[in-house]
């Protein structure tokens, strides 16, 4: 070990840590489930949240005009007690359907999630339930 080496490692550590710290502060968002928002619904708007939940069967509207906009409600993955409306100005993802898990990034404004990003979970590794019908065939 010598001075140059220690200097380099030191600069890298401090610089890297600083960069990570700053970026974390400015980009982190709270991860919530829809029921968290139900309780806080009347309280306050929130910026930058991520909500993970299930597409509720209530109402799905996909407008193409005047702009492409997807409106639906999201509920807890299990034991849903209520749902939260979501507005997403963007394409309906391929695998979007009732009951699918979705991850929504956006802001919570006036009781509605205004999504900037909507991801449906890729069911590639989805484990289907065992076949039930024709049990006696």
């Amino acid at each position, binding site marked *: 070990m010598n001075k140059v080496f220690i200097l380099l490692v030191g600069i890298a550590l401090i610089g890297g840590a600083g960069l990570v710290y700053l970026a974390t502060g400015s980009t982190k968002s709270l991860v919530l489930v829809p029921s968290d928002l139900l309780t806080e619904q009347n309280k306050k708007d929130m910026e930058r949240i991520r909500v993970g939940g299930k597409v509720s069967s209530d109402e799905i509207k996909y407008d193409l005009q005047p702009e492409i906009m997807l409106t639906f409600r999201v509920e807890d993955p299990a034991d849903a007690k209520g749902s939260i409306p979501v507005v997403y100005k963007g394409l309906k993802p391929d695998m979007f359907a009732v009951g699918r898990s979705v991850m929504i990034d956006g802001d919570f404004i006036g009781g509605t999630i205004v999504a900037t990003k909507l991801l449906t979970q890729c069911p590639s590794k*989805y484990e289907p339930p065992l076949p039930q019908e024709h049990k006696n065939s």
Partner: protein
Amino acid sequence: MNTIGNYCLVLSWALTLYGVIIGFWGAKTSNDRLINSGAFAARASFIVASASLVSLITLFLQNDYSNHYVWQFSNREMSPIYKITALWGGMNGSLFFWAWLLALWGAIMSWGKNIYDKKIFAWALPVHLVGQLFFFFTTLFFTNPFHYIQANFVPADGNGLNPLLQNPYMAIHPPMLYCGFTLFSIPYAFCIGSLMANDLTNEWIYATRRWTLVAWGVLTTGIVLGGFWAYIELGWGGFWAWDPVENASFLPWLTGTAFLHSVIIQERKGMLKSWNIFLITLTYGLTVFGTYLTRSGIVQSVHAFAETNFGFLFLGYLIIVAAAATYLLAIRNRGLKSDRALESIFSREAAFLINNLIFLSICFATIWGVLFPVLSEAVTGEKQTIGVPFFNQVNVPLFLFMIFLMGIGSLVAWRKASLSSLRKTFLAPFMLSLLMAALLVWAGVTSFYPILSYSLCFFVFLTIIGEYHRGYKVHGVQVLKKHSRRYGGYLVHLGVLVATVAITSSMAHKIEKEFTLARGETFKVGRFAITLLDLSGIQTGNYDAVTAYTVLKSAADGTVLANLKPEMRHYNRNNENTSEIALRVGPREDFYLVLAGLSEDESHASFKVFINPLQVWLWVGVAIMIAGTGVVLVK
């Protein structure tokens, strides 16, 4: 077939276990008979595991839905090729395939054992087999693909593979990744093996140079194929989303790339010995960590992998690997001293070292990003996450600094560069790059990062061209052949530059537009005009589809550029919708068209278009990188 496959799996696990025990025993006692017996076990376990693999493939091809795994991921309508690739469609098959690949590399190692140093090989083989044993153990006891379906009848048809995965790129992307991951086991095994054998020379690096390069090249290809698949199949116009699963494959790539560079310093200068041991162990560990990350369910991902309850196994194995490497480093510490010290910050040694530190910084920042939800919940009790902007904010500047080092590192003098030599080498390229930056501003590029990125790439391009020119003057056209390692390496760098320019422009100058057209109407975007000609529906046995027939013309002179036919499909069987995008690839940009939907009376169609500048050069750049890796391998 199920029973045969299962017994073969048990047998290959047992043979691997025998190979580990006998191998270590033989190495410890320098007993040739035991060492050869261990090597024989490695080959035998490969052959038996192959029989097991063939049984599983046969079950798939025979549509044998009494096997749970086959029922889950296959159905009668799938073409035979996708029935075979459904093998790695799920977790059980993937881990089994992983174990089989390790057995394959172990067998190749053992067949070619005469080319390696005898003592190192004796230790390295059982080290490799320990990993193989772990994966066979997990496959056999936790994710066995040979389980019968838990129902009192055999289903008439299978569940089928997700249509998105029935794609040629998806068929080869996972096995490429797995090959890349598992191949890193060999340099790791030789490294740990030579520590155990107390052979602290550079022998393990020479012995595994080819393996490491192949691992890197295959992993690079695998990662990029995944991006290419996402680009053409998922319809969001991008190729990389910093998803945990993507990150899981990116992490070992970063440390592996750092390793490829730092071994050069050990070979040439006898420095960084412990560092290289650390790097290869970290790379190996990260390949296993990636599996843990994606299988344990500790992080949310768009890839909804089956959550499992055996994540602790992977964690346990990782702890064993880390503890063993730390112990070995500690007891061999005295023999791993550097032959010389770092003299100056302005030296090639220092440039390589900084390059390594940057690679590791990107790696740790990425790990931080992936694990942040877990960490924040543990510390604050509130679950928080950081998304794509975080990765871009941190990794873009780090990556650009690395591009800068790429220009410096291969040209600056060893040991200590004088100011006059620095001036002589870098002044002209530096001034020309400043000129380039000025030109870019003049041409209307106003953001900081794109200007920096293009100018840096230009700078490094000039230095590489300078090097080729000097090489050409000495060796003529034979330059690539004479010093394949050096000039092949520059070719890889050139590919990185091409890819960087492509990524920069697709990040900085991407255009996204949505529009709705009736038949005969035209929409103008950028230098393009797109006209909807017709809409039509078709039904096949597999899916119903709506196709939009459009023609893409130049907005300026009306030249027909392409007929684009984006499609929306509905697969009845799985009730899945997929969009088939239409793409017009050009050297200047990709015109990427998605059919978003139809109005209720089916008179209008809505589209989303992405204009991705220079996109094709990303794939070209990566192809150059792979070609360069090939050149380096020749020697």
